[in-house]
């Protein structure tokens, strides 16, 4: 027996297959196959982003910077209105126009239309598009940040398509935990410090939202007592974008509270405002709920504050994470969700392993019965093929899903196809009276074009499936494709090499043992 290059390649492939599938199978160190969420359990979500809301808040923040700058320069602004894509207002004094123009010049991405003393400031279409895009990327970053801090292993957060976000969290243990994760993601974490409209606050319970809007106010609910209402100025003094840190702490009554710190700009605005408004109330608003509205006793410098209001420890923890990782510029909503409990995943693995092993044994035994030694050789190739699939998947960090397992099972059935074709060809040639060596060589040559064409067409279907499939289905396409490619190496090249090693030993009398046939003229 002499080694030939085909056998050498086959052996190398076998070593590669065994070596790289060992970490996944035996749990030792090395590159491993990742189990899909359907097999290990976990949460898969596709989120949409409400980008219109991002536009609204962008407009609001432009409104508040115009107002702040106008106050700073002591310009008198009247009829200030927030509209869909911009704001409009009127100056009372003609002399203020150049100053206002200078202020507006500093705001990027807006178009200004002037009509006498009337101003209309709107976002440019380009700015609208970029705000929308930014809202999506910002949501991706923010959600990733929150999940990373939540402390579960390896969550995936990625933009998918034009305007969707894919979130995958493996290792979720219970539905309760899953719900908590969803709530953490959904939290807008929009912190606002707002001035209570003390002039009209007494009438808040009689006021309609429309009336409040006329005064430039909004009515907000108390976080704990839904019956309690506050009338606050619509444009906030400052918001969470100026926040640098948020931590859980405990107050004197041992209740969890959240301490936050503002950046220098925020601290300055906060200090200025509190200095000018001693005796009035300041509402701490989180996601449009008023958590507290303490009376300002003196100017508050240093830029730190506190949110209190009956949190549980878990809640406070999650709110702090959300505040630290920043507010969502736009709310996210659920488009698709798939969550699988760990026990179901384990059941699926068990069931598909049983199917794989049974199917594998059936094919292996059948091939030996039908082809004799030729069947054994095909079976060796099949085993190497299986290891190769696992090895390649581990190498590229591919994900094994339940349909992926089905793909492997299917490969077991189809990978022996190449050997069936080849063996049938060899048998034919032997019947024609060719010598064993010749029958083998010609058999492989004749079978090659058929196998190639057949595999390529199957591969076309698999590639399309990969391109258009989602999640688990992609897993099916992956294992099928790898299986097909690996079978070209094992079932064609590998078995060919083995035959070349042993063919001298085969004489025409032992065709029954080697190929499972009896020639009409031959003896037993």
């Amino acid at each position, binding site marked *: 027996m002499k080694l030939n290059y085909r056998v050498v390649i086959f052996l190398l492939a076998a070593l590669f297959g065994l070596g790289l599938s060992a970490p996944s199978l035996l749990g030792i160190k090395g590159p491993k196959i990742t189990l899909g969420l359907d097999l290990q359990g976990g949460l898969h979500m596709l989120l949409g982003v409400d980008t219109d809301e991002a536009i609204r808040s962008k407009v609001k923040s432009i409104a508040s910077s115009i107002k702040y700058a106008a106050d700073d320069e002591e310009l008198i602004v009247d009829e200030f209105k927030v509209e869909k894509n911009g704001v409009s207002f009127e100056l009372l004094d003609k002399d203020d126009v150049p100053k206002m123009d200078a202020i507006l010049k500093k705001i990027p991405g807006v178009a200004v239309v002037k009509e006498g003393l009337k101003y209309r400031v709107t976002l440019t279409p380009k700015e609208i598009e970029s705000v929308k895009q930014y809202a999506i990327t910002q949501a991706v970053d923010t959600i990733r940040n929150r999940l990373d801090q939540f402390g579960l292993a390896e969550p995936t957060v990625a933009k998918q398509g034009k305007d969707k976000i894919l979130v995958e969290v493996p290792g979720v243990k219970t539905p309760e935990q899953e719900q908590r994760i969803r709530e953490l993601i959904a939290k807008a974490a929009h912190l606002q410090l707002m001035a209570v409209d003390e002039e009209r606050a007494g009438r808040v319970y009689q006021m309609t939202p429309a009336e409040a809007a006329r005064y430039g106010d909004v009515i907000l609910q108390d976080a704990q007592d839904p019956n309690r209402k506050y009338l606050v100025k619509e444009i906030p003094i400052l918001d969470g974008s100026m926040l640098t840190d948020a931590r859980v702490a405990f107050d004197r009554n041992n209740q969890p509270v959240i301490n936050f710190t503002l950046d220098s700009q925020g601290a300055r605005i906060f200090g200025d405002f509190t200095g000018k408004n001693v005796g009035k109330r300041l509402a701490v608003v989180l996601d449009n709920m008023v958590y507290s509205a303490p009376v300002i006793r003196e100017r508050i410098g240093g830029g730190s504050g506190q949110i209190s209001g009956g949190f549980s420890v878990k809640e406070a923890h999650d709110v702090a994470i959300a505040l630290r990782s920043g507010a969502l510029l736009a709310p996210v909503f659920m488009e698709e969700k798939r*969550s699988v409990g760990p026990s179901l995943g384990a059941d699926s693995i068990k069931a598909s392993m049983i199917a794989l092993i049974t199917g594998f044994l059936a094919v292996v035994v059948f091939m030996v019965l039908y082809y004799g030694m030729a069947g054994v050789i095909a079976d060796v190739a099949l085993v190497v093929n299986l290891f190769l699939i696992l090895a390649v998947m581990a190498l590229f960090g591919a994900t094994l899903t339940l*349909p992926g397992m089905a793909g492997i099972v299917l490969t077991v059935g189809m990978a022996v196809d190449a050997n069936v074709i080849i063996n049938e060809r060899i048998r034919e040639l032997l019947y024609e009276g060719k010598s064993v060596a010749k029958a083998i060589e010609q058999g492989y040559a004749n079978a090659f074009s058929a196998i190639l064409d057949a595999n390529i067409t*199957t591969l076309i279907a698999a590639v399309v499936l990969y391109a258009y499939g989602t999640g688990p289905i992609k897993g099916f396409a992956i294992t099928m494709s790898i299986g097909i490619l690996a079978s070209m190496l094992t079932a064609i090249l590998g078995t060919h090499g083995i035959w070349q090693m042993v063919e001298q030993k085969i004489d025409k009398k032992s065709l029954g043992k080697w190929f499972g046939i009896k020639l009409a003229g031959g003896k037993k």
Partner: protein
Amino acid sequence: MELFKYKKPIPLMAKAKLFFTVSVIAVLASWALIMFKGFNYGIDFAGGTLVQVKYEGKAPLPKVREAIKHSKVFEGASVNYFGSEDEIIIKVRTSSKQLGTDIGDEARQLLKNTGKFEVRRVDMVGPKVGNELREKGLMALVLSIAGILLYVSFRFEWRFAVASVMALVHDVSIAMGAIVLFNVEVNLDILAALLTILGYSLNDTIIVFDRIREGLTSVRSPKLADIIDESVTRTLSRTTLTSLTTFFVVLTLFLMGGEIIHGFSFTLLVGIVVGTYSSIFIASPLLMMMGFDVQKYRQKLAEKKKREAEKEKLRAMYEQGTV
């Protein structure tokens, strides 16, 4: 062991009309089923929510139905056993956009007093995603067929390509008909199964066509029917064997792979049977029907010898080991 020992060509083409009749009836019946009864779309394509709950012991079906009866989100929900009597599946066409408290959480609340249970799976697909998935799925089917058509035209001849695609349409139609007939729920995995059938059935057809391509030059008779009979008979053994091994493994998947993979393996089982049948009895006669002319083909071959050269090149490549 040998199941089919080649003695002489089986005169299959003589009976082509019979096979055609059977197939046309089956395809038409499938189309009628698809049109009049329609697919039972699962939540992947129709949108909706699915909650899989496992009880300790037998699941109290009536109690569950009672518990969710008055809930608004579960209006029109169906509750059924899933795989075993411990496990149930609640399906409803509604979906919630909310991240905080979703339909799964709602189900957990409502079922609180029905016994000890575990919510094992909650799938929710919004209507927009459902539509998108359906469009993408259809696109995938069309693109696969187009890709296959192109490849086969390039490697064989256009009539071969058309015949193989018609055989594919035949297979996929009948598999879809079976899905409708047995009320299998159509989700993404069924789409994957249908695409696999495409690949698989084509695989079979190509092997036969490859033999016919070979027979066009090697079989003495100038009659296409003879060449086809010879080629089909020669590949009969392989076609049956491979179909058997694949059928075996898919059958184990069907019987032991668990409830989730049932629809998938069922579709594959039907596809394997139909695909095998069509590559033997349908694809090649179609070639004949389209008026493939052996004489012309041979003339063309003699003129150009293009395909032969290509094959030689492949063979040479293989022998040098560069493939």
